[in-house]
């Protein structure tokens, strides 16, 4: 079941005009920013399918950039996001892709600053819901039926245990989990699917675990 909450249907509260092309896009942008951990200096945003065809009309561009600036779906500043990005020294480039993606509303965001780069693929699945399907070239094989979080961490012993211990303490069961790293001892990540949503306070607690840099909900 992809849609588990009544507020997926009656919601979100958002700036118009399109839940999939505006609100969903803002959520993809915001997840990208949260996963990167800071505001990037530049972002190349590749748009596929319906996103590529209609992004100007739906405000998909301002919404994605608004998300990169950390705005929520209901933040009125979304309307001026392109100007605000300029002021924040965030350099944006949009690329309309001809090729088709698996999902009609797909965006690939390649972003970075002097300290690092980051790439993700996000899809907007309707009603303002969005999911991350690829991260730094690593395909996330989510079932899509369960809530999922993504944890960015340093590749050290104990990092994984510290996260799973917190979940165990709150009796949250893990249904599926993947661990990946680029290089031994460097950046690594975990994707954890759980049987229930992880409340905000527990997400905050996870961020304080040893060697953890970012914890983000990627599907709820």
């Amino acid at each position, binding site marked *: 079941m992809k849609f588990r909450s*009544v507020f997926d249907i*009656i*919601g979100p*509260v958002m700036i118009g005009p*399109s*839940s*999939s092309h505006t609100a969903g896009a803002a959520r993809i942008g915001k997840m990208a920013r949260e996963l990167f951990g800071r505001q990037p200096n530049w972002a190349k945003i590749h748009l596929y399918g*319906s996103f590529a065809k209609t992004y100007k009309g739906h405000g998909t561009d301002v919404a994605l950039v608004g998300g990169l600036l950390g705005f929520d779906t209901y933040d009125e500043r979304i309307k001026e996001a392109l100007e605000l990005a300029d002021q924040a020294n965030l350099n944006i480039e949009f690329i309309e892709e001809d090729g088709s993606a698996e999902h009609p*509303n797909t965006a690939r965001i390649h972003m970075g600053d002097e300290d690092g780069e980051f790439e993700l693929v996000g899809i907007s699945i309707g009603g303002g819901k969005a999911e991350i399907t690829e991260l730094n070239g690593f395909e996330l094989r989510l079932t899509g039926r369960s809530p999922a979080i993504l944890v960015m961490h340093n590749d050290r012993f104990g990092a994984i245990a510290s996260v799973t211990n917190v979940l165990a303490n709150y009796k949250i069961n893990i249904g599926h989990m993947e661990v990946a790293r680029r290089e031994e001892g460097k950046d690594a990540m975990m994707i954890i699917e759980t049987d229930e949503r992880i*409340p905000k306070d527990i997400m905050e607690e996870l961020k304080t675990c040893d060697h953890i840099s970012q914890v983000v909900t990627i599907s709820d």
Partner: protein
Amino acid sequence: MFKNVSELIHLAESQNIPISEVMIRQEVEETDKPREEIVAEMGRNLDIMEKAVEDGLNGVKSRSGLTGGDAVLIKKYMEEQDSLSGNLLLDVVSKAVATNEVNAAMGTICATPTAGSAGCVPGVLFGLKPRLKPTREQMIRFLFTSGAFGQVVANNASISGAAGGCQAEVGSAAGMASAAAVEMAGGSPQQSAEAMAITLKNMLGLVCDPVAGLVEVPCVKRNAMGSSQAIVSADLALAGVTSRIPCDEVIGAMFRIGESMSPALKETAEGGLAATPTGRELAKKVFGPALGSE
């Protein structure tokens, strides 16, 4: 968690509770949030919807200039002339149009289930308000009932125009509103399901063909028609009319129709009204030749 409409109806009937109550209890179970918090959050969504209706009835204009001001025209017509379809229906329609005009103008709305279809649920709710005089609690329940039916469609078919066409958006929204209207008018859970089925059956095959790719033409007027269908279907169901095809099977048919629909007719602005001479002309006026033309 209920997987389909028949499970939803069974949960309501076997416990002798309304569908809204099934939805509230499930949300409590699913999120572990206190009931009061969940109801309060829905109350905030209700307030956003009411504000959007008010703003739209006062008159807004989208940036493209394609939509805006029709809600004002309808309201004025109701006040000054004897309408053909009656003031309740037109009140519903004007409030649905108001919401979508605010959405097109990049105002703040609550997606129900999407932004492009955000007019049907509040249109029906606030249009029925003077007639049924619901309490605030009943109005909040209306939204939970709408959400319950929408959730079934979202999980078994689609609520995305890009994936399923407009039937998935305005179709779902109108169906949700009709089911909730039945409950608010005192009908049974099964009657809500009949209203949902009757509405959806008449929305099957509706394509998503927005001119210039904007959520304006024909979206605003489709919400007008969706909300009026919701009222008529609710009345049919309350009269005891049933759908020969069960609601879950109608939803299944909607999914398969969406799958077989050409991508040109699924929110790409390449077919249907978007591809008419006037549709393309409007697209050029708004964006220059890049969008909506070959």
